């Protein structure tokens, strides 16, 4: 049973990890995009529709990534080129995404979806427990893990990553050094959109292979909280995402186990745990000023107008 529970936790955590990783890169470049929920639901709609039309969940994944990425360009254009307020634009992006995705998916409501099947490796997949958990997963799970490793390397070991962080910390200095702030930020925003789109694809192709309007049901907001929870560190996103997922699944099982034992655990309390944990972490990291300064991108959310 433990194995079955773990598999459920992986399914529930993957979209959170993916969307949060994308937002992490965006925020590291100094842009705050609150439209994660909107980009995620766009990804879910595009992925589902493309998979239904072509019969291939892999084309669906591609469509989800493109859907989220292209949709985020709208945010990029408004906030980077037209220098609109990032918070307001991000919120608008969420509202627009929820409406637009409903329109895209309207004809596909109620259709049984195509589930993305796990990849089976010879021998490895048959190892008891670990093999069945780690080597019998779908492509999106492997991508999420690869992205954690890749983004960590990119941000802290590569030259381009260093430039991206420099822009996030002080766009004026980075600009003075000759780094193209706007172009880098466009790319970071699009990467965030693509990741959110992939997270959406996971929802409509793996988690619950169907399309219903509003099906992301607030997961984009959890991903946003996760970025702060992880204090802008990729590995902590992985840990935090799985913690959120595990608490969510664990509380459902706790309810049943409590019933078997005849004790009472208020389910509302358990549902609120991940959010309470975020608040506690926020208190801790803002208490220690040095870690806050090290990890928080200093120009986060500030508009940048290059002086000519």
């Amino acid at each position: 049973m433990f194995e079955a529970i773990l598999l459920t936790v992986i399914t529930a955590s993957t979209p959170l990890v993916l969307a949060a990783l994308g937002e992490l890169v965006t925020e590291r470049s100094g842009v705050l995009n609150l439209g994660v929920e909107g980009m995620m639901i766009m990804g879910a709609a595009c992925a589902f529709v493309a998979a239904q039309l072509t019969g291939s969940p892999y084309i669906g994944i591609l469509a989800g990534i493109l859907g989220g990425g292209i949709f985020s360009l709208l945010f990029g254009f408004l906030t980077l080129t037209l220098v609109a307020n990032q918070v307001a634009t991000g919120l608008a992006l969420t509202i627009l995404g929820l409406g637009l995705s409903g329109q895209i998916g309207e004809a596909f409501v109620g259709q049984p979806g195509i589930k993305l099947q796990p990849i089976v490796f010879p021998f490895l997949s048959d190892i008891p427990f670990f093999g069945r958990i780690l080597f019998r997963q779908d492509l999106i799970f492997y991508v999420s893990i690869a992205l954690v490793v890749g983004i960590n390397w990119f941000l802290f070991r590569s030259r381009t990553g260093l430039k991206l962080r420099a822009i996030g910390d002080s766009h004026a200095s980075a600009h003075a050094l000759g780094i193209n702030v706007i172009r880098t930020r466009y790319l970071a925003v699009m990467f965030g959109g693509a990741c959110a789109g992939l997270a959406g694809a996971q929802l409509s192709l793996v988690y619950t292979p169907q399309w219903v309007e509003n099906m992301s049901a607030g997961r984009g907001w959890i991903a946003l909280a996760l970025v702060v929870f992880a204090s802008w560190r990729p590995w902590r996103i992985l840990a935090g995402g799985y913690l959120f997922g595990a608490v969510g699944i664990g509380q459902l099982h706790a309810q049943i186990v409590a019933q078997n034992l005849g004790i009472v655990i208020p389910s509302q309390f358990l549902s609120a745990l991940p959010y309470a944990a975020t608040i506690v972490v926020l208190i801790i990291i803002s208490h220690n000023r040095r870690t806050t300064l090290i990890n928080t991108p200093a120009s986060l959310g500030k508009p940048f107008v290059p002086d000519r």
Partner: protein
Amino acid sequence: MKKLIIALAASAALMGGFSTGAVAQEKKKVCFIYVGSKTDGGWTQAHDLGRQQLDKALGAKVETPFLENVPEGPDAERAIERMARSGCSLVFTTSFGFMDATVKVAAKFPDIKFEHATGFKAGPNLATYNSRFYEGRYIQGQIAAKMSKKGVAGYIASFPIPEVVMGINAFELGAKSINPNFKLKVVWANTWFDPGKEADAAKALIDQGVDILTQHTDTTAPMQVASERGILAFGQASDMIAAGPKTQLTAIVDTWGSYYIKRTQALLDGTWKSEQIWDGLKDGILTMAPYTNMPDDVKAMAEETEAKIKSGELHPFTGPINKQDGTAWLAAGEKAQDGVLLGMNFYVEGVDDKLPK
């Protein structure tokens, strides 16, 4: 997107009174407030089908604008008020959680008629309407007891309100009428609408050993999980057979259309009165989806129970019934009062869960 257009239309009407010109006055507006999306495959879809039937029947005399995805809570009041101001003559608010908001707005607009689904607070211009879903749940319980090999069913619940508690109790009573030892595991998802969470709850129940699922949440995700794991399940609010052709035993299908037509006709005739209506299987406000994926004798039993409930011969809440803690509730032959059912805040014997307070 339609939501946006309606919102824009509503605010346009609010800002410029000119939009309610001669044409608009000829057609009365009958408005709907939905908690979910109109294509959720469950609860809200059933209401929207009712609205469409109303449109078909009386479309020459009425318009039927609607707002979907209205969250329960402070936003609901604003949404209902906006609808009221946009020139509606009759407003249907279709979720239990809209109760207090509807009461407040109804008090502000004495000339507009309001109807709130599944609530218990009425007023001079505020009627309530409800469906005896528990009749369907009793039948489901009987089927579950016949079909379950382990004698344990899983119940995905939303919020601990009387409506949901009543359904859980009716299911357990139906099951116990067949198998006195039947057990019911309840998981509270604390949401009406979240496909992922509903699926998680379904998986948790199956992993914990139930072999039949029923739900009181709005999407087809649990049905899909049951189908994937090869167990049987019941649909909720709409016929969910498409999500589980080999899984769904039956579903409680809400059929609000005839009610909406009846009440709108009363509005047009000027005979609309505030009432507290609670109709059941016999009135056609709820119907059972075809009994599928079960042997003929179980099907015959279900049909017989359905007929008995329709004729009034059988009331699911007929004593002797004990409360969960073993104390007596109804004496032999005694039937539950409607008022008690509508405020139900306790379990009957046999439910394993402890009711969240």
